[in-house]
């Protein structure tokens, strides 16, 4: 994971001839077969763009199959990037540029391309066979159906083969370099240097010089092709964004999540234990953490999700930061065990990277439909804290926050990210040590007067007394506990008391978390309330409307249980409350029940994030009604 710093040096490679147009925001989408390396192409363009100094946001889009048969619609994989000279928060509603490596990719994406947008195609790929697989009756390159776009149909494959010919690389392997040819071409169009990608290729294929050379030559050839041929009459300049000074890196939500959890371990001096069973889109957290063996983290790939959470509970009991990560179906399986952690009052974090449901649903698509499961998906009165990051980089902060709460209140905390956050990336300003939250954990060691369920009067947390501590030998378990002693108790009034104590303990966390901040005026006509990954779209929409002088404000919840203490009073100050969610209204239900506010839902369950325009539309409609 660790590589040397790369310093951006675009200047040398600036071409002369064609017209240079200044623009301040571009959305590009790369689409092709799962086998075409579109994710790689996109990441390389994103990293280079980040190094170049633009602000950016990305949206990868995988098929559920590993490699559906080449050329079929099912096999199409895509990567969208929005980059700009000003601050941006979403991968963009609509691509300005579409790079499509075959007919299937074109067919399933061209509708999204803006009118008059740039369309780059591999003309070599438009064969009878591929057109058939994509379900084209006629060839779009010929039937004029693409007239509305600025079409560049370039024989990418054959050009690539030429470019790599002298490496001796043959057939399929040679063809597979064509994504780099396309990348080089797009680099040129947007004045990005090829250096970073060249270095990356060298490193990646250091054990296979032939492949390395071929890819680099393809990359360079693509760049040169654009530079030298007359194909492109203009290219584009997107100036650096004015970002806050500091050191930056580009980071995905899953990387930020993993980094945040280890940071929590380093901050509080307790090792991290990660129990997990692979599941899309959470697996990358396991991959990431299992690589960091020189950090205080141990990973355990369990036989299933129940084992993963059980092991995490065992580790927490032993004094580690017990963590498990999964996605919706896995969270369902953990339900019973999370209840055990609630009863035994151990710190535990369950990271749930949400995906499309119900059931197996849409494994590779994003959704926010596990909030109510997180709140109520357990037997009995079984409260846990719930937090949710708002952006890929915010995953870092909320991961730390999850363990701060878990250890301070001796409680399970469910951390709700989603596929869009997990796979999406953005530039992240690396915080200095001083910017990190202070956060300490202490074990009970004193023997005198030790009682396993005697609570801290402020937090109601019970002591964390770990095995190996002489004199504190005690027994805990899933049966109801006697107040203070923690012995098994079937006493009716004790049960009632304990149920309310557990509830109260979670409620008190509200005293310990920041009030939610309002974006815009303190009161007005419409308040937009969001949580999780909808932050970018909501904020962009609200800011743009505020720019137009509309009476709309927004708040974004990163703590879902308990709610920030000022939430209720804020809701009261607006005529209408709109709650956009990638579900059928789960936060809305919680707010209505708690505050009896007639919150209105904007609900999209398409496995995709909101477009800014969708939120603007909904707010304008509401404003019309006020």
């Amino acid at each position: 994971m660790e590589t040397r710093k790369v310093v951006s040096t675009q200047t040398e490679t600036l071409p002369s001839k064609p017209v240079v147009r200044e623009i301040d925001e571009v959305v590009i989408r790369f689409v092709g077969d799962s086998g075409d390396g579109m994710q790689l192409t996109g990441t390389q363009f994103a990293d280079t763009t980040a190094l170049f100094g633009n602000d950016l946001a990305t949206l990868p889009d995988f098929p559920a199959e590993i490699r559906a048969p080449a050329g079929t619609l099912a096999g199409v994989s895509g990567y969208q990037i929005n980059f700009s000279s000003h601050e941006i928060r979403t991968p963009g509603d609509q691509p300005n540029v579409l790079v499509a490596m075959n007919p299937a990719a074109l067919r399933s994406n061209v509708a999204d391309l803006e009118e008059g947008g740039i369309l780059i195609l591999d003309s070599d790929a438009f064969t009878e066979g591929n057109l058939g697989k994509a379900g084209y009756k006629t060839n779009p390159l010929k039937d004029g159906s693409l007239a509305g776009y600025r079409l560049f149909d370039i024989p990418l494959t054959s050009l690539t083969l030429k470019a790599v010919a002298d490496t001796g690389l043959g057939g399929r392997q040679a063809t597979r370099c064509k994504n780099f040819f396309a990348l080089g071409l797009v680099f040129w169009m947007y004045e990005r240097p090829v250096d970073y990608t060249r270095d990356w290729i060298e490193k990646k294929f250091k054990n296979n010089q032939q492949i390395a050379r071929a890819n680099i030559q393809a990359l360079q050839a693509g760049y040169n092709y654009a530079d030298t041929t007359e194909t492109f009459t203009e290219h584009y300049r997107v100036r650096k964004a004015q970002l806050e000074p500091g050191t930056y890196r580009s980071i995905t939500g899953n990387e930020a999540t993993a980094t945040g959890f280890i940071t929590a371990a380093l901050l509080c001096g307790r090792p991290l234990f990660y129990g997990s069973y692979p599941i899309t889109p959470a697996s990358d957290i396991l991959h990431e953490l299992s690589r960091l063996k020189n950090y205080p983290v141990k990973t355990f790939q369990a036989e299933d999700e129940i084992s993963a959470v059980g092991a995490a509970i065992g580790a927490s009991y032993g004094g580690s930061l017990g963590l498990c990560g999964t996605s919706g179906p896995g969270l369902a399986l953990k339900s019973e065990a999370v209840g055990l952690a609630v009863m035994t009052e151990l710190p535990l974090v369950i990271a749930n990277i949400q995906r499309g449901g119900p059931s197996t649903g849409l494994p590779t698509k994003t959704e926010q439909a596990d909030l109510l499961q997180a709140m109520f998906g357990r037997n009995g009165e079984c409260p846990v804290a719930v937090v949710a990051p708002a952006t890929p980089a915010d995953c870092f902060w909320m991961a730390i926050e999850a363990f701060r709460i878990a250890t301070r209140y001796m409680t399970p905390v469910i951390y709700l990210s989603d596929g869009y956050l997990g796979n999406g990336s953005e530039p992240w300003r690396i915080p200095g040590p001083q910017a990190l939250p202070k956060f300490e954990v202490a074990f009970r060691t004193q023997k005198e007067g030790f009682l396993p369920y005697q609570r801290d009067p402020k937090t109601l947390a019970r002591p964390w007394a770990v095995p190996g501590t002489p004199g504190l030998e005690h027994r805990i378990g899933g049966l109801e506990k006697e107040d203070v002693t923690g012995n098994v108790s079937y006493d009716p009034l004790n049960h009632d008391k304990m149920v309310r104590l557990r509830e109260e303990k979670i409620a008190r966390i509200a005293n310990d978390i920041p009030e939610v901040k309002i974006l815009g005026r303190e009161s007005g006509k419409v308040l937009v309330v969001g949580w999780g990954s909808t932050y970018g779209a909501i904020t962009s929409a609200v800011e743009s409307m505020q720019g137009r002088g509309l009476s709309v404000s927004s708040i974004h919840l990163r703590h879902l249980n308990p709610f920030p203490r000022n939430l209720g009073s804020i809701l009261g100050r607006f005529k209408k409350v709109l709650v956009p969610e990638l579900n059928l209204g789960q936060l809305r239900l919680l707010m209505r029940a708690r505050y009896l506010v007639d919150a209105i839902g904007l609900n999209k369950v398409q496995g995709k994030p909101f477009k800014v325009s969708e939120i603007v539309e909904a707010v304008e409609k509401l404003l019309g009604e006020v």
Partner: protein
Amino acid sequence: MSSPTEGAVLPPPKLTKADFSSDQTVRWCPGCGDYSILAQVQKVMPSLGIPKENIVFISGIGCSSRFPYYMNTYGFHSIHGRAPTLASGLKISRPELSIWVVTGDGDGLSIGGNHLIHAMRRNLDIKILLFNNRIYGLTKGQYSPTSEFGKKTKSSPFGTAEQPINPLGVALASECTFVARSVDTDTQHLTATLDRVARHKGTAFVEIYQNCNIFNDGAFEAFTARDVRSDRMISLEHGKPLIFGKEHDKGIRLNGLHPEVVTLGKDGITEKDLLVHDENATEPTLAFLLSRLTYPDYPVPVGVFYNASRPCLEDVVEKQADQATAKLGAGSLERLLNSGATWTVS
């Protein structure tokens, strides 16, 4: 083979059986076999020289799983079938602890079967005691995965339709490095076996025949009863021929892969003809063969069936961490946050 005390800092104070009984009143039915097992475990503990605070008993749910409450050590009465998962997480994160899993035939082989299997193949250094009473006790008498075919119980009034599972066979197929069997009523044999279990490095699994005198009374009496025991059970001893019987006159001989009960002296059969037990065999085939011997066709074997040595998961994990740290240097916040390609905006 390193003893489980490694990691304990001070030489442990001399402990007695009493030190290991908690203040909780034992709540098993009068006459339950669990009492005897508890007594033997409490008896063995002091001899291990492990400080009390480094010992953890983890159980699932069932009568047997109440066990931890009665041990004056650390204890975790978890949820049904999941004890091995908690034990795994605890062992990996705290390798110096001595971790004991107590489970039942339902807890360990029905709902918890999968966790048991995977804990075993990972060879975590944990001790697993399976109390097999061939019934669900706590839920008041339904059949379990070890109940005999055709057994009539509350949930099988016409008899079960299921072949019981053999706990030892499952353990062997799961690459468990130590597999044994004992009986609640044979306290001497039980203590000896528990002692072996405690001293094994790696996952040690022992099936303990346990009488549930309320819902399955006398399940094992046919061969465990004092008077018949020596004729109907055989105690396995490493390197010794398989001899049994009050008069030590019966033995087991292999005919190809088929075991036969023979009488010493009869048609010139001598000890030399008998199968010799080898708990350290490279492959668990012999142990598997022995695990298939059942009364009345054969004497029921007890003792250590198999005893192999293989790296423990938690040790490999530690080693990998050490190597990585040696190679890359210990990770720091600074390095963690700044890893990957970074750039500076001024």
